[in-house]
């Protein structure tokens, strides 16, 4: 560790840390464009100039490592003058089209111009334009407006260093250089939309998000991607009850600063609720809307009698919901519970240490289910489990496995008594005797366990839509009606369930909500879990 003084504040940082990060640690923001903590340092935007005592010239903070005893000034007159000059250079050719630019509000050029720029310009000549590259789809998800590019090369370095696909390169040179793919080929790699995340300006934007919402209206809720077992940390951007986008959230151990396109574009799915009230079949024909009271009573009377139901739980549920499934159905009612797991497409993401993290399956919480002591099954075993008959079937998540959503699954359970919890109708829910509406991923709080063995917290960003409720709440209500004592203090909250879970499941021992605020996911205790 070395000690540096930045604007009079002493801060201790590891040797080799650059001045941008050191200042950040001291609570001082040094503006940067080309610098990105996840990419190599090129020092070419020149906005991060700082003054180091004893150095004759200003130095770029991103490319200057700390030295013990270094004294740094980030706001001296010289620094301000240099920054204002670089801002003027950058704005010399940048179109002033903020009102129609979708990056506005999260544009570093806009922000730093306000903070560090001049209030005027000496520029009177025509701005540089790139005809034909002003609103151009350069891949399935990315739109390029080269006029706005500030040549920071973050996107190029992303495709070189992170995705390792090298799709992008700087073409030509000097003031007329531009970003392009090779010979009109699409920018199509599994992480392509990350180039828009790293773009500090509106030169690269995500097609699916463009002009859906002004970013200053968006509320961003920290969550975890549910697209596969890796569990990339994300932020869910939503406004007025509508989910607009997923963006990666920094987690050095799991996803670094990145996420894949598959996960990112699941966002739209969260707006797709079509079960918004409890449904109950009273005679022949479609199930009809009913009250929660009546529907829950059906589950108690019809599904949970006589040795309990056959339960299909889900690796898409939070640890808390799975814990309740285990407690109520497996431990108290003695029911058979399976958790179907689909291997899904192999996916991978690079963490902040430059290592690839690979997916184990297509669910966010199969690891949690395993640690809980639930029985994991594959698609064929699930089919056999449902096909062998005997007792009612309770599907805790109708979207638990792709096969469960097929006509074939519906045929397999036809003639059996089926109760389901669902957000979206499937052939199976259409013939179920009762359906309870469940809250979506952004409408519930809880924790999930990544296949990397880290437990992360997902926050609730929206109130449950329609009359839906989070699965943990539905299970709590059921438990009360079944007179199962979960030993939880009222009111029951995910946090209280989590506390109970950490006390009872060895793999989660010692975890607290508080630790989620400081740790990039809490590692599970694997050895104990294996023994127990």
């Amino acid at each position, binding site marked *: 560790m070395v000690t540096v003084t930045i604007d009079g504040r002493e801060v201790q940082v590891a040797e080799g840390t650059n001045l941008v990060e050191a200042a950040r640690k001291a609570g001082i923001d040094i503006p940067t464009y080309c610098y990105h903590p996840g990419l190599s340092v090129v020092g070419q935007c020149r906005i991060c100039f700082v003054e180091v005592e004893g150095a004759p010239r200003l130095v770029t903070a991103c490319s200057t490592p700390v030295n013990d005893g270094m004294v740094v000034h980030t706001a001296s007159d010289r620094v301000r003058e240099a920054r204002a000059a670089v801002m003027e250079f950058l704005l010399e050719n940048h179109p002033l089209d903020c009102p129609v630019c979708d990056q506005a509000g999260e544009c570093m050029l806009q922000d730093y111009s306000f903070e560090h720029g001049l209030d005027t310009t000496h520029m009177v000549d025509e701005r540089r334009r790139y005809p034909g590259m002003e609103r151009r789809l350069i891949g399935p998800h990315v739109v390029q407006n080269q006029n706005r590019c500030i040549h920071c090369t973050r996107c190029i370095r992303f495709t070189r260093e992170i995705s390792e696909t090298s*799709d992008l*390169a700087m073409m030509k040179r000097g003031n007329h250089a531009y970003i392009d793919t090779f010979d009109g080929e699409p920018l199509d790699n599994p992480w392509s939309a990350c180039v828009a995340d790293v773009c500090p300006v509106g030169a690269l934007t995500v097609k699916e998000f463009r002009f859906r919402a002004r970013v200053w209206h968006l509320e961003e809720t920290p969550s975890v991607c549910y697209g596969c077992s890796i569990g990339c940390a994300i932020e869910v951007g939503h406004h007025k009850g509508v989910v607009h986008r997923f963006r990666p959230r920094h987690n050095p151990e799991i996803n670094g600063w990145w996420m894949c396109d598959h996960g990112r574009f699941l966002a739209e799915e969260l707006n797709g609720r079509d079960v918004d009230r409890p449904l109950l079949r009273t005679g022949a024909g479609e199930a009809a809307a009913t009250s929660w009271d009546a529907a829950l009573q059906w589950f108690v009377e019809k599904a949970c009698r006589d040795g309990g139901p056959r339960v299909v739980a889900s690796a898409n549920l939070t640890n808390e919901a799975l814990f309740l499934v285990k407690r109520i159905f497996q431990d108290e009612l003695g029911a058979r519970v399976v958790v179907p797991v689909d291997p899904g497409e192999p996916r991978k993401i690079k963490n902040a240490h430059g290592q690839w993290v690979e997916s184990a399956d297509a669910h966010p919480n199969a690891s949690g289910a395993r640690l809980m002591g639930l029985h994991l099954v594959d698609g064929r075993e699930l089919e056999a489990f449902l096909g062998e008959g005997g007792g009612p079937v309770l599907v805790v998540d109708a979207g638990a496995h792709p096969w469960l959503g097929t006509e074939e699954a519906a045929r397999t359970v036809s003639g059996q008594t089926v109760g389901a919890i669902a957000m979206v109708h499937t052939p199976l829910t259409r013939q179920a005797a009762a359906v309870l509406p469940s809250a979506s991923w952004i409408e519930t709080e809880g924790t999930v366990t990544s296949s990397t063995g880290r437990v992360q917290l997902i926050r609730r960003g929206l109130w449950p839509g329609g009359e839906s409720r989070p699965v943990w709440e539905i299970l709590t209500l059921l438990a009360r009606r079944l007179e199962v004592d979960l030993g939880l203090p009222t009111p029951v909250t995910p946090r209280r369930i989590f506390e109970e879970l950490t006390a009872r499941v060895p793999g989660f021992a010692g975890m607290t909500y508080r630790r989620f605020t400081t740790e990039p996911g809490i590692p599970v205790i694997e050895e104990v879990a294996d023994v127990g």
Partner: protein
Amino acid sequence: MTLARTRPLTVAPPDTLADVSFDEAMEARIEEILAKYPTRQAALLPLLWLCQDRWGWISPGVMRAVAARLDLAPAHVAGVVTFYTMYQTTPPGKYLLQVCTTLSCQLCGTSGLAEHLREKLGIGFGETTPDGRFTLLDVQCLGACGEAPVIQVNNDYYTGMTPEKLDELLDGLQ
């Protein structure tokens, strides 16, 4: 006796360069080039020169073949090709007339030569005559300021040019 000593370029038409492969003679040269450097990437500029000598210009198909030969990303190769001004990315004429337009040559009368060329050939800078014989380019300092004004035709320098010498030169370039 004519002034001209430059041989015409071999210029491959675009449709022949969509998908290229290296023949035996080129492969032998590539191996020689690779032996000079500890990394394969370092052979990029020499290999591009080899291709331009062979086909007259560097098409996307050529870039792809070079990238595959050196285990590089095609986008990287394109970035390099477009960075350096001497790699031609469109088919040039048989003779590349490169007029130095920087200060020392200008002081000695380049603009008159450029005007003369434009009139005589009926094309501007960056254009090729309809018969595919000449491409006119304005280039920056050629490093022969003591013999200004200088014109480079393909690989050869012609120094101390005057409109009269230029006429003689152009007539000799068939």
